[in-house]
């Protein structure tokens, strides 16, 4: 009986209280980028996500919502992966510098990785040019081709903000340029009419397409 009680106490001693521990950020990959780029980063974390288990209802719920901030800016499209990593996209507009990386779980517990992410100065063009765009059908995807022009155009590998003169364009942020060029699939959601597309990088360099018509 005494052995049994001792074993029981030992077993219970290995258990924690019921307050979940604060999360920790083990690493962020990549840990640096160039100004104007918007890389997808992967955070390795130690975290117990808020959860509840009800044996009577045979139900388990886990709150996997997370907010990741770099330098105070929330990163987009954060998601918890089945292997426990968290991914998200760094804002392309972050100026050069070293930034704290912060993680916040759904119940408010948070972690900070001081100076965990660095933005280095990037290569930028002076402007952008579009290949001519023919008339397109509304709400249907089509391809555009952009060229970085002037300055360090050939080294530009950042992303640009896309805007349409009417309606809404998707995506609003382009894929990265490769050697100063980008071919991108876009869709414009609006009624029939004339429209132009404007591209703008993190430092404000921009270019506008020819006017083309959206048809039904």
């Amino acid at each position, binding site marked *: *009986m005494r052995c*049994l*009680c001792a074993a*029981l106490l030992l*077993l*219970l001693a*290995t*258990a*924690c*209280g*019921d*307050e*979940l521990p604060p999360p920790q950020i083990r690493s962020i990959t990549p840990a640096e980028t160039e100004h104007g780029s918007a890389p997808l980063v992967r955070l390795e974390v*130690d*975290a*117990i*996500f*808020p*959860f*509840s*288990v*009800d*044996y*009577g*209802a*045979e*139900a*388990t719920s*886990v709150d*996997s919502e997370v907010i990741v901030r770099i330098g105070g800016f929330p990163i987009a499209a954060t998601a*918890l*992966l*089945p*292997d*426990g990593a968290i991914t998200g996209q760094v804002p392309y507009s972050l100026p050069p510098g070293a930034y704290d990386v912060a993680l916040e779980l759904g119940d408010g517990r948070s972690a900070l990785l001081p100076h965990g992410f660095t933005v280095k100065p990037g290569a930028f063009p002076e402007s952008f040019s579009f290949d001519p765009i023919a008339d397109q059908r509304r709400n249907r995807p089509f391809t555009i081709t952009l060229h970085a022009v002037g300055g360090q155009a050939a080294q530009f590998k950042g992303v640009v903000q896309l805007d349409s003169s009417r309606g809404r364009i998707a995506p609003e942020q382009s894929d990265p340029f490769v050697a100063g060029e980008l071919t991108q699939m876009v869709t414009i959601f609006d009624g029939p009419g004339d429209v132009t597309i404007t591209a703008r990088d993190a430092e404000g360099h921009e270019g506008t397409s020819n006017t083309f018509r959206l048809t039904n």
Partner: protein
Amino acid sequence: MRSVPAAALLLCAVPQTAVAAPRVVADTSRVVLGETDAVVLRVIAGGTLSASVSSGSIAEAARRGDQHTFRWTPPPLRFPATALLAFWESDAATPDVTVFTLPLWGRTTLDMDTEPGADVRVQVGESTFGPVKANAKGRVRVPIEVPPGVRTAKVIAVAKGQQTSRTVPLDVPRTTPFVVAVGPDPLPGGGGWLAVLSTGEVSARTFTARAVGARLSELDRDDRRATWTLTPTGSAGSPIEVTIDGPGLERRVLSLAVGERVNSPPAESQVPIVPHALLGGFFAGGANTGFAAEVGAEVRPAAVPSWLSVGLDVGVRSASLRTSLNGLGSVHSSVLAFPIGPFARARLYAKAPFAIDLRAGLAALPFRHSFTAAFEQPWVEGGVGLEAAAGPEVLYRLGPMELALDVRGAWTVARTAHLVAHPGGLLLTAGARYVGR
């Protein structure tokens, strides 16, 4: 069907002699050898008590004011007999002895030959046992219980509408119980008294007493008791040997000494501990289902009725739950709980070899909850829940063991900020108790 004459729940003993003798009340009127573990007696007397018994053993378990509690343990006999228990105040100058009579029922099985298929009943005294149907060869076995003093049984067989009856002898040894009392206890140098008390079946007028180291002088005699003055001839500490004898008596030699107690029953120093172990499961709806086991031990303090005992249980329960989360794979939760707490057991029904007890208890429920998922570190937490449980236990006596089937309803909760589990509900376990003898 067996019929048993109605018996009073309590038996009272009236002093055989003077008014100063103790009054005795027992918690049962029926002792079945091999089944009754002990009899608790409450004796009302102002001073220190002495006690002696004709068979079995007696111990004083407690005293509160003028109420003394004794526990008498039956002898290891199986045939019917009578036990005499004598109580007197230790410093009584005259033989004011209360004799308490306990009939000891024996249990046996009659093996008989009769007509094939006959329904057989056995009448023993005023009790009837059976009917039991004879097999195709006409063999029949009827378990019976026999009170002291009954030496024959009437066997009644009914076959093909015809009833036959015959009387069969019961092989019961003849005994003449008697009990010896000496007072004052311890015996003073100036002497005291000796009393030999019996049931009267064999008259006490025929009893003889001889003493070495003392002188005996007859005081009084009737059919139930014989008394003498007992005067030591030696100095303090000198041994005295008294021999009681008579026709049909089993000779008894009593050794005592001046100034030393002889009839003082020992204080009960050891309370028998009955251990048990049970294995099974629990079911409380949803995932509140799993393995259950417990070990425990119980005692029957002398101060409580003999049908009641109290003990302590330590158990283990386990349950687990695996669920799948969208896009994140499966998560696994498991609960390991250890109910520990006191319980009480009351015997509701006993007809050898079966018995039915009611058990009820409260328990603290230390538990450990682990939660694991591929996307995070395992999490282990603990807490202490509660349990209240009660239910019947069916027992089957097998030698020194009782096989047990336990059914209990349990309100049980194990809860943390992240967990709600009920590792109780309906508890269904089986196991054994070691009751000894």
